[in-house]
């Protein structure tokens, strides 16, 4: 049998290396798009500016019968961007196109939700970034995500802490997400198939919980598994536009409160005849 020459080995190695290099490059060849997305859609996102010559639109008369400004408390061009540099870094690092179906690759870095099958979507990057910013995960903190979906949100969370646990009730989605999330260091027992309504008792309590599934009420077991001082984030609204994000906070005494954050700014319904200012 003819032996393999050194040059033959070299060619063979190069032959092996080339596909790997191509794969790596292909995996990360969209870093520029990601950077642009982070820069334009996340970091420097602003509310639309208005011409200074145009009067602000008004909604209603005030008590004196005059027009109270509809956007009275807002600056002319409002900064709505993500402030936390770690979140921006995470969004810059995690390749979203790994989580997007083949047919939608072109739009992977558009700030849009995209269908992933089974009637589910991958959230728009701005919502993922905002939910992460609101959750404010610290290194080493323990996070539970209910509704793995594509796995993108969980992947972003791994940039803050390895203690991310995610549960998906639709098994095909969980199976698709598992290999993707293993590339981010999550073990199979951190990417689970099951009913997230009951949380993950054996890993509780959690410093943060993200519920990405639609919720009409907040599952009591999740509230119980939230550590005092912890936070839960829930998006509320139809699939194509998360209309508000609800931040549920549990104070050290165990008292639960919610706070709504509007990721999309509206012309607020203010300006009616108000009573006395809050004391």
């Amino acid at each position, binding site marked *: 049998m003819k032996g393999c020459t050194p040059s033959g080995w070299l060619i063979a190695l190069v032959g092996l290396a080339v596909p790997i290099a191509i794969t790596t490059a292909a995996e990360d060849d969209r870093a520029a798009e990601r950077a642009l997305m982070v820069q334009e859609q996340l970091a420097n996102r602003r509310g639309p500016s208005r011409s200074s010559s145009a009067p602000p639109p008004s909604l*209603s008369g005030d008590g004196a019968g005059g027009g109270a400004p*509809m956007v009275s408390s807002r600056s002319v061009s409002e900064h709505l961007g993500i402030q936390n540099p770690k979140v921006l870094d995470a969004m810059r690092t995690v390749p979203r196109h790994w989580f997007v179906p083949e047919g939608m690759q072109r739009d992977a870095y558009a700030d849009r939700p995209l269908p992933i099958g*089974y*009637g589910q979507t991958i959230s728009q990057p701005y919502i993922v970034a905002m939910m992460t910013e609101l959750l404010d995960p610290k290194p080493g903190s323990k996070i539970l995500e209910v509704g793995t979906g594509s796995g993108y949100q969980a992947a972003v969370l791994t940039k803050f802490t390895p203690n991310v646990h995610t549960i998906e*009730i639709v098994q095909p989605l969980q199976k698709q997400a598992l290999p993707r999330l293993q590339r981010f260091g999550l073990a199979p027992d951190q990417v689970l198939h099951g009913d997230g309504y009951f949380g993950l008792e054996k890993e509780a309590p959690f410093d943060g919980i993200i519920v990405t599934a639609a919720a009409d009420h907040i599952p009591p077991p999740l509230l119980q598994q939230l550590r005092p001082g912890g936070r839960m984030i829930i998006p509320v609204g139809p*699939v194509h536009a998360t209309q508000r994000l609800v931040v549920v906070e549990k104070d050290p005494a165990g008292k639960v409160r*919610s706070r709504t954050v509007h990721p999309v*700014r*509206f012309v607020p319904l203010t300006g009616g005849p108000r*009573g006395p200012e809050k004391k």
Partner: protein
Amino acid sequence: MSQRRWAAGLLLISAALLAYELLLMRLLALAYWGHFAGLVISIAMLGIASSGLFLFAARDDVRRRPEKYFGGGAGAFGITAPLAFLLSQKLPFTPFLLTWSAHEYGLLALRSALFFVPFFLAGLAIGTPFVARVLPMGRLYFWNMLGSGLPALPLLGAMNFVHPMQLLGAVVVLAIAVPALCARGLLWRIGWLAGAAGIIATVALTPFRYSEYKDLPKTLLLPEAKLLEERYGWDGVIQIVDSPHTRYLPGLSLNFIGRLPPAQLVFTDAGAMTLAFKVDEPESDFLKQTPEAFSFRLTTSPRVLHLYGGPADLIRARLFAASEAQIVDDSATRVAALINATGESAGSLVRADARQFLERSEAPFDVLAVSLLGSHGTSTAGAASLDSSFLLTVEGCARLFDRLTPGGHALFGTWIENPPKSGVRLAALLIETLRGKGTQNPSQHLLAMRSWSTLAIFVGREPFSAAAIEALKEFSDQNSFDLVWFEGIEPADTNRINVLPEDSYYDAFAALLGPGRRDFIARSPFLLEPPRDNQPFFNQAFRWSAVPQWVSSMGMSWLPFVEWGYILHAAALVMVTVLGVLLLLVPCLWIRARPTVRSATLFFLLGVAYMFVQVWAIAKLSQFMAHPLLAAALVLSAMLIGSGAGAAVLARGTGARPAISFALLALCLGLAAVAFPILLRLFYSQPTSVRGTIAVAWVALPAFFMGFPFPYALGRLVRQNEVPWALGLNGFGSVVGSLAATLVAVHFGFFALVLSALCLYLLVWRLSIARVGAT
């Protein structure tokens, strides 16, 4: 072919076409959503209009061999109609991509193009006898109208027994009977019949596919979820599902720490989920921790009526020892399914229209609850924005308040939205109703609170006492709900537990109860004007005048928040108009012997006017018959058959007297408009059979005279080769008219709609006095 066969064939293909149109509307609404169905079908129906162009081009051949076009068109329609639907089921549809993806618009166009084909073929078949003049115009129109009027009610009845998709088989049978009648040889007949059998078998063996974004298919993906039963009804397809991993209770307190009990899920048309909790569920304490439970702090042992509630409301009422509790639901099929799933009695779960039930009920109620907590996604996306509701009008709410006992109260529940629309409009409606009833200080009659996801408004027949206000504060505190309104509330009392960036609900109450309310309503980016019976579109809050404000403050980010039902309807009108002009009018420029402007206008307006009356009649009878589908079926039957009869009688021969016929048309239409409120007052609480008989007479009389103008104008065409154009333009006018009529009703009210129809008919009369088409 004998005249009798022509008449029978025209009747059959007309019946097949209308049956297909109705089924398609139902099937697309079932698979996707109603507003997409309207858009797709409106565009596809231009196929009927554009068949006029084809008939014009091939007119000589059509006159030589009319049987070939008639039988061939009808037969091809019978085959392509179900196939188009089956193929459309294979096309993907992701509704939210419509806000930004051109690809999705391409798919929508492809879907419309698929349906365009059968509509074109049916138009070809129906137009052929008119072009070939195989019978006098009046008689042709009679058979056409009679055929169109026949299938609506039988179809509605058949939907009680089979899935609407299987009824496509009836379309095939009706349509393929036409070539079977026309065909000369036995082999041809056998061939057509074999084709029909093959298509029917294909339909029967193909499973119906729902959009993956509807609630039912998403639920069935959950572990252990299984479809227990599917029930068919004329008012909806009901699916009963066992899904132990689905839990649903809007408004549940953050303080609740127990477990929600299992329940069966009852879906209507694969959406609109209701939970069927078992009645004697011992773990029902969770129901005490919802805003609705506060009703029982205001009253003891009350008589309770829930309008559009669910079995959970019955359990809650019993939990608080209500003396009597009833749920009213307008779907008989859903009520039957809920009774079956819960074991409740027919006395507790009642099938009735809410407004009509209030009219006919005798004893007053201590608590009257109205739930607006439908599917959250659907309501916030405005899918139901063009649905009328005669309960959520000033008149409807006034009737509701009248049915309260002196110490009683009404309760309204809705979602917290961003931006707030339904909740604020509801507050405006209730305050306006209270003012309309002469309430001096409406603020004293109102209490409101919100959980993190829902808003509850309580309206007292009498002012709420200080004790009631204290109870509200205590209840809110216990359940971590936020106070929104009571007489004397301070801003510091609000927005403390479930914090919103601005407490728009408190602000709205303050504005609506203050002196600046008119300004507040006028300058809102949403339509907040309280709806009335003349414009009963509570869910339609979109204002064109606010678009510049939206764009200036939000750029294009506002798009997902508008009422898509309304937007798609308006878009359909624009698209249909543009496509109709391209398909029908532009070719005029290249073809000699084109229709005159006068005849083009005449036949177009005839289509518009007819549809204005039809949409108006359906809307009015939706209230009278207490169900929109029943009203639509009655109107289609009575109006089309009535018009057919009118055509046969009035347009017979040359002795017709147009002035008298038009005058009688106007008189009957005017009388119908004037008589309606009287009929409503006299018969609204009568049984369905009585109301149905009156409704048929009410529609058929003006319809009889509305049958005259079209065949009369066709008969007076100077150039007979304009007949296909006239048919096409009339079809185009019908599609535009049906879309425009809804917009006229939404923006100007039903009275304006019927008045417009009257004016259009007067214009038609003026145009048809001259010999039509004369230059």
